[in-house]
């Protein structure tokens, strides 16, 4: 136990301020929601994550959002297991044929008002996988998308900036 406490004290707080300038493009496309509804999300945002066919590169960076350096919880952002509790749907990958139904069902299970952020170049347009018999291309082909965070994969700071931007539009 002493070792654990010692390690905690010597590490201290490592959370970094979020850089305002980012490299990845954040493209906001959705204007479906009224400003006052978006205000509801500002201090507490619950995210349901769905991998719709990614290579798992984006997942690694989304995982990093919860590490002590990016610490997304300081913005009131946390991930939930149930779409019923979610305000925002975070989707990665080109949508694979075999995940299309699951993605639609997850989206439909979320209560209104809801936001969708598509992550990565694949989520944007299918990336290197393109559109084929097995890949249906970008997330926008299947469900309405409010913002795209581009990059392959986008780094955690870009992701966090993208999410914050879409809720404070």
């Amino acid at each position: 136990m002493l070792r654990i406490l010692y390690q905690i004290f010597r590490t201290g707080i490592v959370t970094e301020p979020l850089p305002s300038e980012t490299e990845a493009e954040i493209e906001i496309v959705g204007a479906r929601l009224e400003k006052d509804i978006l205000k509801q999300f500002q201090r507490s945002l619950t995210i349901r994550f769905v991998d719709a066919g990614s290579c798992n590169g984006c997942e690694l960076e989304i995982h990093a959002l919860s590490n002590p350096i990016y610490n997304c919880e300081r913005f009131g952002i946390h991930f939930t297991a149930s779409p019923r509790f979610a305000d925002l749907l975070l989707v990665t990958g080109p949508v694979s044929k075999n995940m299309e139904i699951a993605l639609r069902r997850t989206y439909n299970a979320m209560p209104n008002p809801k936001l969708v952020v598509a992550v990565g170049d694949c989520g944007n347009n299918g990336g290197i996988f393109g559109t084929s018999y097995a890949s249906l291309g970008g997330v926008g082909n299947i469900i309405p998308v409010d913002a795209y965070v581009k990059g392959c994969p986008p780094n955690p700071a870009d992701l966090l900036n993208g999410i914050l931007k879409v809720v404070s539009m």
Partner: protein
Amino acid sequence: MNTLKDIIITTLKEDAVQDEHQYPAWVTTFIVPRSRFVEAARAMKKADARLVAEWATDETLMHTPSPLNPLPQGEGKFDEQSRGTGAKFIPSPLTGEGQGGGELRGFGIFACFAKASEYLIVKTNAPPDDPTFPTLTKKFPASFRFERQIQSLMGVNPTGHPDNRPWIKHEDWPKDAWPLRKAFDPSMYMERVTGEYKFIRAEGIGVFEIPVGPVHAGIIEPGHFRFQAVGEDILNLEKKLGYVHKGIEKRFEALSWEEGVRLAGRVSGDTTVAHSLAYCMAVEAITMPGCKPPERGLWLRALMLERERIANHIGDIGGICNDAAFAFLLYQLSRLREIVLRTNYKLFGHRLMMDKVAIGGVSVDITADGINEILSELNLISDEFERLASIYDENPSLEDRVRDAGVLAPDTAKELGVVGITARASGQPLDCRIQNPFPPYAVIVPRMTVLQAGDVHSRTWVRVEEVRESIIVIRNILTSLPSGEIKTGIKYPAPDTRGFAVVEGWRGEIVYWIQAGEKGEINRCMVRDPSSVNWLAVEQAIHGNIVPDFPLCNKSFNQSYSGHDL
């Protein structure tokens, strides 16, 4: 001791014909008649070899006569040595097939076996009007899924296979959709049909079923798990995968060789260096004249490979501890992982080092300052890591969860032919860096950690030891990094050749088998991620555990869904 090659020759005698178009020289392909395919597998099993992979090719459209490859005159039979023998199948007394004459060539079925550092491929042919081959499942459990996959994606049936349910191909695909066949148009949209996947059922008082997925509770990839349980005890676990199938193997066929590197790097994002490296090595094996990456390029490849290993192992150890409700280590280790990724970004321009391996070498060099930066980063990482490893090691409540959980016994591991950390935690001494090394590893030999218990703790501890070892390897690489070029000029593969490569990724052995078509294009690219065989082990290791321990057991294997589904 007999090598696998000798065994095939002595067993099948003149029925085994060697394919001269297979490179590099340390892997040989023997073409055998369909009737003796199982016999060859039996001989391999007797010789204690493991099944590495099984795959099929559609050769109906290959070998059409063209001005470049005119029909050879006066050839009595068809064999692999004579390229461009025309679309007609000429009956061969050697392979014993197509005796009716006048058929197209049909399909090739390949099984790759390995023992220590020797790899051997056995190929057999199936004519287009009878696309079947005898199953190897009775000899090698690993072929269970491979053969279902061949059936689903290529439409070549394994006769005698105990399970005819499709794999990867979901029940709502059209019955005759065989994407890997050349006649299949990859851009077509498949209509959905009705169908039901029949899971294995367990019946009796108190038996219930828990379906999980494809969308899981956490931030992980999609897959479906079906548990049969009595109370908390798991009777059986069955998986249904294929949710992340993006048609990667078919996609390769539409890309140029350079674009292929990008795609290979995205087969499984966490193993991007190892996958693109294996692809490049397979391509380099068939470029004529030989494309030999310069020494410095090879060493930088190994450097990236080890950095990828460290980053993933550190993340995984944290993840395992978190699943045992010890979040302290997750946060501490994810902080270390972030340090590694940031150095990657600073020195290589990408946090995961995607697209940094190229055909003929690497695309980014490292400066003297960069070397010093990595060395000082390693000092920091290794100090912190040792402190955290001893906290892991001395925590009794953590030990209670990880010991004797999810045991994969050495016998089972051997029978399934598992690879990588899963194998090494279950007593199988397999590591391609040691058994099939490329230059830096021939000089800087990593120490292999092999444990016997096969439980969650063993798999975690193998990772701990490998982080330590990789730090030593990187230090050695950096202190004696050769100078010079990092990349040779692009050369293209020779027509009608087959390249093969194995690379030890952080998860285990990655295999690429590439076939260049008659114009020198990508005709077929077979990818075998370690997950393809190791997923079988998860199902076996979970027997006798309780449902709440599943996430912990599963995390200790941490297999890729994308690498498996392709």
